[in-house]
């Protein structure tokens, strides 16, 4: 097998961090090559360099035998490199055809382009309607738009950055079939992911990155999930454990919650009904954009609903404000760390005040009591091993994993009766993720109820007692997590079975 792309000694440094440090590897012709590593390992910077979005400080690339140093994406596309982005590079208020035209250098006329889109999408089993608005498409359909956009240029190398993070298991299967078909036609694929079982199922070779350096390469088909994960992290990993508790009385009951979304591309909640008991971890799965954000804001109190629809410890709280709910024992941590659960340019101590002011009595008559605030911040930092110089640094200066530990810790140390968290470990390194999961389980063991909204199926299977799935704004009936298989959950996620 000859090499399609060879990287030699690629280095790229940003102020304060070396994103890629002397990275060398190669991709063979017609090979599906995995790039494996934790968040912050430098995978994204590396592929951006190949796609011409980032210029490396030093090092060389060779593509199809020629020296290759694209200074912008247009040059990379002209050479035969195409890329599907992790956060889709799509324009919601535009049609599928317009989105595809924007990704091409010399798009044909609209009518011809529509014809070609239908042709290519039919050939690879990626059904698309060129005139539809992208804002109305599901995540899976959006990804098809990106893939078709790449395929229309007949690429030699297709880069896929975390392509499956928002797909159901069935959609992942379909994607793999498409990728194998692309491979069989002679193109190579660089597949970036931290989902190990996918890499083992799809890829022939893997290069592992850690802290910007290549730490190894292997044949993922003969490795185990555990061995790959330990290669990525560079340490032994322990799986979180839960001590058995008997479930108590229901802490929270939702009875037929309906909520119309204000966002034109949002999802309205329909007839959401469930109970969480003391000591229970309820996992809520589902593909992003199926009502998770809406459910989160209805539970936290950012959006008010009819009083009777939400019942906390026997009290109807549908109309209560978030701070009132906090006093009553319902604490929450929304998905976005920077800007939603924490104010980026405020210190950690000030961020403590935002949710703990009333519950921890950190102020009186509108005045802040500084010493107890500082103490509480220090307690969170210590209890959750938040790596930070002290509590006066800005929230945004913490890494994703450390800030997430801080945000979750801030709520857990306030001893909630019910804790609601959305995407607790999204974009968090494996060690921090394990810490957070363990803390959630300990909270439940201590007799609190926990609701975890997540798109990470493995995470939900690992920590939930009961599991329900959001699809199109409807919630399936919660079932015992141990009785469900990933296939069954996948069906629920696609909304194809009535709950």
């Amino acid at each position, binding site marked *: 097998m000859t090499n399609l792309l060879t990287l030699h000694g690629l280095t790229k440094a940003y102020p304060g961090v070396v994103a890629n440090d002397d990275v060398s590897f190669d991709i063979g012709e017609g090979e599906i090559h995995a790039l494996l590593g934790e968040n912050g390992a430098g995978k994204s*910077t590396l592929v951006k360099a190949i796609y011409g979005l980032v210029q490396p400080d030093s090092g060389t690339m060779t593509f199809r035998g020629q020296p290759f140093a694209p200074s912008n*994406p247009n040059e990379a596309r002209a050479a035969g490199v195409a890329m599907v982005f992790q956060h889709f*590079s*799509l*324009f*919601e*208020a535009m049609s599928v055809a317009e989105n595809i035209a924007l990704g091409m250098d010399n*798009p044909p006329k609209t009518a011809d382009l529509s014809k070609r889109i239908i042709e290519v999408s039919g050939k690879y089993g990626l059904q698309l309607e060129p005139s539809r608005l992208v804002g109305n498409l599901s995540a899976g359909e959006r990804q098809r738009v990106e893939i078709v956009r790449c395929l229309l240029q007949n690429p030699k190398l297709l880069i896929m950055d975390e392509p499956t993070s928002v797909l159901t298991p069935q959609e992942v299967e379909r994607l793999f079939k498409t990728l194998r078909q692309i491979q069989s036609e002679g193109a190579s694929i660089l597949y970036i992911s931290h989902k190990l079982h996918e890499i083992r199922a799809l890829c022939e070779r893997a290069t592992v990155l850690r802290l910007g350096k290549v730490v190894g390469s292997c044949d993922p088909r003969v490795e185990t999930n555990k061995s790959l994960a330990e290669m990525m992290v560079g340490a032994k990993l322990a799986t979180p454990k839960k001590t058995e508790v008997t479930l108590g009385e229901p802490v929270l009951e939702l009875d037929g919650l309906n909520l119309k979304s*204000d966002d034109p591309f949002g999802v309205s909640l329909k007839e959401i009904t469930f109970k969480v008991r003391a000591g229970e971890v309820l996992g809520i799965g589902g593909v992003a954009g199926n009502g998770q954000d809406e459910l989160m804001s209805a539970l936290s109190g950012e959006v008010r609903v009819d009083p009777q629809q939400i019942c906390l410890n026997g009290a109807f709280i549908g109309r209560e404000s978030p701070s009132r709910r906090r006093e009553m024992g319902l604490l929450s941590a929304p998905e976005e760390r920077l800007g939603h659960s924490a104010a980026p340019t405020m210190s950690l101590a000030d961020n403590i005040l935002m949710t703990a002011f009333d519950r921890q009595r950190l102020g009186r008559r509108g005045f802040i009591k500084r010493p107890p605030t500082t103490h509480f911040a220090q307690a969170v930092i210590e209890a959750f091993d938040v790596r930070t110089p002290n509590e006066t640094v800005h929230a945004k200066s913490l890494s994703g994993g450390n800030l997430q530990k801080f945000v979750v810790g801030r709520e857990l140390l306030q001893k909630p009766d019910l804790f609601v968290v959305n995407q607790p470990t999204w974009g968090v390194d494996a060690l921090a993720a394990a810490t957070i999961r363990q803390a959630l389980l300990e909270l439940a063991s201590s007799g609190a109820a926990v609701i975890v909204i997540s798109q990470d199926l493995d995470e939900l299977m690992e920590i939930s007692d009961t599991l329900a799935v959001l699809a199109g704004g409807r919630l399936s009936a919660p079932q015992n997590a141990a009785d469900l298989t990933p296939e069954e959950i996948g069906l629920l996620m696609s909304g194809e079975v009535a709950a």
Partner: protein
Amino acid sequence: MDFSSFSTLTFLATVMAAATPIMFAAIGELVVEKSGVLNLGVEGMMIFGAVCGFIAAVSTDSPTIGFIAAAVGGAGISFLFVILTQYLKANQVASGLALTLFGLGLSALMGHSYTGIKPPSSAKLSVDGLSDLPIVGRLIFGHDAMIYLAIFLILAVWYFLKYTRGGLILRAVGENHDAAHALGYRVTRVRTLAILFGGACAGLGGAYLSLVRVPQWTEGMTAGSGWIALAIVVFASWKPLRILLGAYLFGGVSILQLNLQAMGADIPVAYLSMAPYLVTILVLVIMSADRKRASLNAPASLGRAFHASS
């Protein structure tokens, strides 16, 4: 009330003239906002264009050179906004307000010695025969060239945004600048060009006031037209053809109140002169009542500063 002085034809012709300055400014601002930039300096760019155009027209005795100077002046002052918001990444709202204040002050300084002078008059386009047709002749033909240019500009922008690749890229940049950057489009360059175009249009609108509509130079003569133009962009839900509608609606109400005053309507003058602004506010409230529709049309990146992340 005395209706004898009212003539529908004269009324319609004056409405067209009253709407033209706003049309220029609004279509320029629409392009700017479609690229994702909110430039609140329209008023300042308009009045700066008004004074530049006036000075150039008086010194060369040519209204055409006056209008060209106004467009260049408007684009020139908007370049300040480009430097502030696109290169220094300053806040767009604050920069826009500063531009308005700066434009008002600078134009007053420059126009000081020009108060009370009459500019050269612009020729009306008259087509032999056609302009003498009954009704249609007065209404469609026989205006000055700038009225036609304004309408042509709106049609041209509509075509550009809907049917050309350049328009597609402009909309893409306004819709999601990160994605546009990731695909290799030059966000800052596209926005710079859009802002300069918006400045030139605002300048033309201002010069139409000082050279044709009034026509003379007085300090602060735009009297809020720039703000009305901003409101009309929202009223039009960022659709070029609706700018035409919005500008005529506003022009219609402002001429109507003048006519009512002349006819001695039994309403205090103060209420009549605030009518156009009240109607604008009312229409805006009604238009934005449906939040879903309003946010669907607005460019999603409007007013957000762009930092290339890589």
